[in-house]
């Protein structure tokens, strides 16, 4: 697999040509040209399943910045492979689905597919990268592509709001994660995750261990929408439905789970990791399922359900990390199944949630609404969609014969085992885990029932729907049908899946245990009259009862005061920061050039005088200087006179001409010092700039007595004097501070080296030609800058006149 890094790069490379395809071939939907990419990736990865499951993982390194230890290392083990398969597999189905979902006439398909491919490449990069800095790069790239995709319909206010919210929260977490990565790299002295795992034993005692762990978890929790950072995910539902199915349920939000699983070998086994990960996961599981019940929008309901399911997986990973505390042996066997359940549920969730999102997309596409209050009785209209919805949501509720039942049972088993832990103070708090998990599962059951029965049964009100399309969307039903058949397939044949995909993934989460054997039993649908089966039966019984009596207890949702809602807090925070920073910026950006010049010169004086003071570089050595002649004295006095004239002149014209005199006097200095080239240049430059000044001052008001009476400004005088003194001091000290060989040695051999007798010109075009080239470049840029500034002002003025 030497070309492994290519699978990450292919989507990026292909994204470059997508806009051209869209422009050139408008007849055919652009999606058909994008579809082969995830298909090829999927097939390529499938071919390596058995190799990864049996042999050691694949690794391939391309040096990138070797001097900093940053290499583009692709690493494929069981865990990465599962994610890679989900990304490319669901990616294929979503692309196919989007071909029928997005109209090729009305939508900007080039943007859509470029962002989609960007995301695909970035996500593959996250799961296949071994170097944490490369991982971080791809991680942020997924945030950015998610931002672009949420704001795909950027004309809508809700899309922009949701995109901004998602970006702010996930990038905040990303920054925290970067800080955590850097701390971790500092502790272990490597950027490679594999090498960190090898050193994992020694880092627990390090004082920065906890800080780096919390920072990295912040990144994972924001990305995976864990409480209290989950608020971005419901707003992200403004994205087109294929994107919600792909990014916001199947792949991107699982990046946090990937990160936690990947770092379990490093942090796992400590009490903080166990409590933070499983605790946050459990709270999110409960809060997500509790909030999902009250949603009226189908997509919002699925968003909260995704939040809660992600919490479930993260909680399981936290519980499973208890095995690391015991190390390989008898005691750990109880907790390893939690990790298996997490990975299994991760796969299952991708199948049934992807299916459900696509079903919602079909309903939205066909009826024009996703509002539960308007929908009802669609069963007769859409029998296939109904079947798919039943499969998906019953699996989510944890009912047989669907794969959700298996992983839900494993989950119950995990929390029950955890409640019997006698470490990490679990002896006192342990019973909370099964209790909360069980309550959350009841709510999960309720919203699953609402999803199916409120939409498809009951009375059908065609007048409430916006439009009914008679066309059968077979292309939109095929992808969810594939996922629904996987939901059933995994129920009946879980063990081949476990053998080739799940167990290798568990082995990479718990590498120490893989060597001595994981000791996992095969997954069975029927496992006797166990406590977890009774729990499931209880969930169904109480869930049905509560669903039927829903109107009687739905009042509890209005109880939480608005001020404590997380969205309210987020909005206020945003408003307050925007306002206060706006005020600060307005405080110093006055719009007056004189203020900006004041800042610039004050900074100049502070920094340079500070450097001069700290380095003690001021030096005055009169012995090095030549004697001063009468010409120089006269010229200097004349310059002082001209400078005073600028200050006290009554009209602008006099001031400009005095400035010109100053320039000519400098040219005279060059004449005295026998530098004809410089003198000539100075004379011409001075002439041209004087004309330019005259032109510019034409626009400015006359120096009326009112303007002249600006008043004495002490700060301005201090800065002005400071600049003058500083430049003088620098000029004097320059004589005594020589760091480099003077370039005037070219003087002796300019004719031999450059064939030129004029040393100045030889230096300009030959010896220091690079300087000259950059100088004319800067000059040219300045000219273009002047041009644009003036043209821009002009249009601005015209616009004001038209008002």
């Amino acid at each position, binding site marked *: 697999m030497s070309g492994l890094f290519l699978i990450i790069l292919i989507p990026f490379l292909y994204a470059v040509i997508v806009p051209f395809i869209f422009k050139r071939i408008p007849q055919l939907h652009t999606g058909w040209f994008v579809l082969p990419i995830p298909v090829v990736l999927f097939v390529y990865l499938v071919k390596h399943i058995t190799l990864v499951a049996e042999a050691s993982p694949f690794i391939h390194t391309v040096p990138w910045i070797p001097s900093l230890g940053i290499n583009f290392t692709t690493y494929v083990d069981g865990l990465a492979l599962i994610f890679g398969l989900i990304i490319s597999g669901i990616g294929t189905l979503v692309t196919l689905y989007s071909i029928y979902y997005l109209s090729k006439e009305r939508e900007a398909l080039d943007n859509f597919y470029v962002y989609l491919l960007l995301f695909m490449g970035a996500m593959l990069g996250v799961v296949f990268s071994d170097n944490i800095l490369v991982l971080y790069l791809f991680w942020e790239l997924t945030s950015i592509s998610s931002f672009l995709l949420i704001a795909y319909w950027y004309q809508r206010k809700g899309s922009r709001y949701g995109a901004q919210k998602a970006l702010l929260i996930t990038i905040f977490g990303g920054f925290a994660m970067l800080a955590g990565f850097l701390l971790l790299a500092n502790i272990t002295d490597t950027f490679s995750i594999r090498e960190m795992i090898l050193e994992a034993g020694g880092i627990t005692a390090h004082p920065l261990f906890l800080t780096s762990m919390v920072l990295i978890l912040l990144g994972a929790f924001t990305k995976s929408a864990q409480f209290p950072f989950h608020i971005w995910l419901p707003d992200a539902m403004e994205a087109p439905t294929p994107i919600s199915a792909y990014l916001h349920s199947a792949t991107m939000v699982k990046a946090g789970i990937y990160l936690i699983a990947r770092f379990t070998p490093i942090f796992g086994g400590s009490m903080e990791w166990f409590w933070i990960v499983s605790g946050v996961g459990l709270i999110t599981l409960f809060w997500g399922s509790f909030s999902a019940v009250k949603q009226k929008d189908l997509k919002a309901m699925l968003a909260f359900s995704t939040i809660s399911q992600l919490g479930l997986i993260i909680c399981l990973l936290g519980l499973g990390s208890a095995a690391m505390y015991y190390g390989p042996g008898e005691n750990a066997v109880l907790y390893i199944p939690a990790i298996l359940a997490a990975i299994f549920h991760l796969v299952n969730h991708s199948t049934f949630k992807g299916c459900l999102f696509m079903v919602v997309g079909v309903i939205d596409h066909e009826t024009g609404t996703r509002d539960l209050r308007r929908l009802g009785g669609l069963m007769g209209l859409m029998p296939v969609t109904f079947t798919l919805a039943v499969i998906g949501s019953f699996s989510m509720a944890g009912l047989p014969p669907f794969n959700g039942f298996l992983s839900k049972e494993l989950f119950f088993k995990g929390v029950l085992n955890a409640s019997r832990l006698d470490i990490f103070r679990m002896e006192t708090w342990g019973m909370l885990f099964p209790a909360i998990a069980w309550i959350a599962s009841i709510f999960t059951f309720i919203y699953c029932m609402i999803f199916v029965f409120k939409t498809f049964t009951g009375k059908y009100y065609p007048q409430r729907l916006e439009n009914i399309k008679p066309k059968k969307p077979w292309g939109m039903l095929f992808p969810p049908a594939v996922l629904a058949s996987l939901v059933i397939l995994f129920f009946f044949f879980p063990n081949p899946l476990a053998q080739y995909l799940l167990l290798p993934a568990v082995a990479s989460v718990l590498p120490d245990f893989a060597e001595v054997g994981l000791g996992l039993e095969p997954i069975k649908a029927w496992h006797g009259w166990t406590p977890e089966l009774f729990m499931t039966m209880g969930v169904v019984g109480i869930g049905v009862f509560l669903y039927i009596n829903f109107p009687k207890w739905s009042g509890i949702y209005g109880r939480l005061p608005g001020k404590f809602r997380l969205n309210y807090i987020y909005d206020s925070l945003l408003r307050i920061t925007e306002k206060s920073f706006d005020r600060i910026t307005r405080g110093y950006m006055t719009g007056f050039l004189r203020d900006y010049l004041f800042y610039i010169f004050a900074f100049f004086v502070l920094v340079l005088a500070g450097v001069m003071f700290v380095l003690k570089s001021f030096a005055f050595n009169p012995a090095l200087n030549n004697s001063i002649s009468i010409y120089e004295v006269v010229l200097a006095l004349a310059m002082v006179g001209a400078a005073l004239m600028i200050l006290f002149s009554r009209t602008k014209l006099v001031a400009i001409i005095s400035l010109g005199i100053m320039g000519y006097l400098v040219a005279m200095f060059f004449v005295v010092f026998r530098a004809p080239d410089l003198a000539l240049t100075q004379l*011409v430059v001075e002439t041209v700039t004087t004309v330019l000044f005259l032109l510019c001052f034409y626009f400015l008001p006359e120096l009326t007595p009112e303007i002249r009476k600006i008043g004495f400004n002490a700060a301005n005088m201090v800065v002005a004097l400071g600049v003058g003194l500083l430049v003088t001091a620098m000029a004097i000290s320059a004589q005594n501070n020589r760091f480099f060989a003077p370039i005037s040695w070219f003087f002796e051999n300019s004719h031999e080296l*450059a064939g030129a007798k*004029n040393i100045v010109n030889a230096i*300009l075009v030959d010896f220091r030609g*690079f300087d000259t*080239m950059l100088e*004319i470049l800067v000059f040219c840029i300045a000219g273009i800058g002047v*041009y644009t500034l*003036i043209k821009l002002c002009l249009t601005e003025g015209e616009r004001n006149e038209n008002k």
Partner: protein
Amino acid sequence: MKTNDVILQTVTKVATFIILTFSVYLFLAGHHNPGGGFIGGLVVASAITLLFLAYDVKTVRAGLPPVDFKILAIAGVLLAVITGMGSFVFGKPFLSHAFGELDLPFFGNTEFATSVIFDVGVALAVFGTALSIIYTISEDMCIWRR
């Protein structure tokens, strides 16, 4: 108020030619005597500026070839960069120059140097930028006056 520019205009007509000729001399003299691309370009710019002052911008612009000064400046920078890259062909580092002598009929023994091409780029960039700044501002003034 009607301005009387007769003297300025008459002098300018003659002076411009002298200045332009001088600028060519300055440019070519640069190798061995005071002068060079930078000053050569600037002197041309000042000659045109003088024309702008003596007559008005529109008249002068109509008499000049219709070349955008910005394009001239950019062409100059490009020429300088490309000359610098020319040394790659001979496997030398960026901006290496060569010079040699050649016997030409009529001119006799003449010296050639690749740095002259670079200098043409410098002259063009300086000339183009200086004039484009002055021209933009003065053109702007005409519109404001309306």
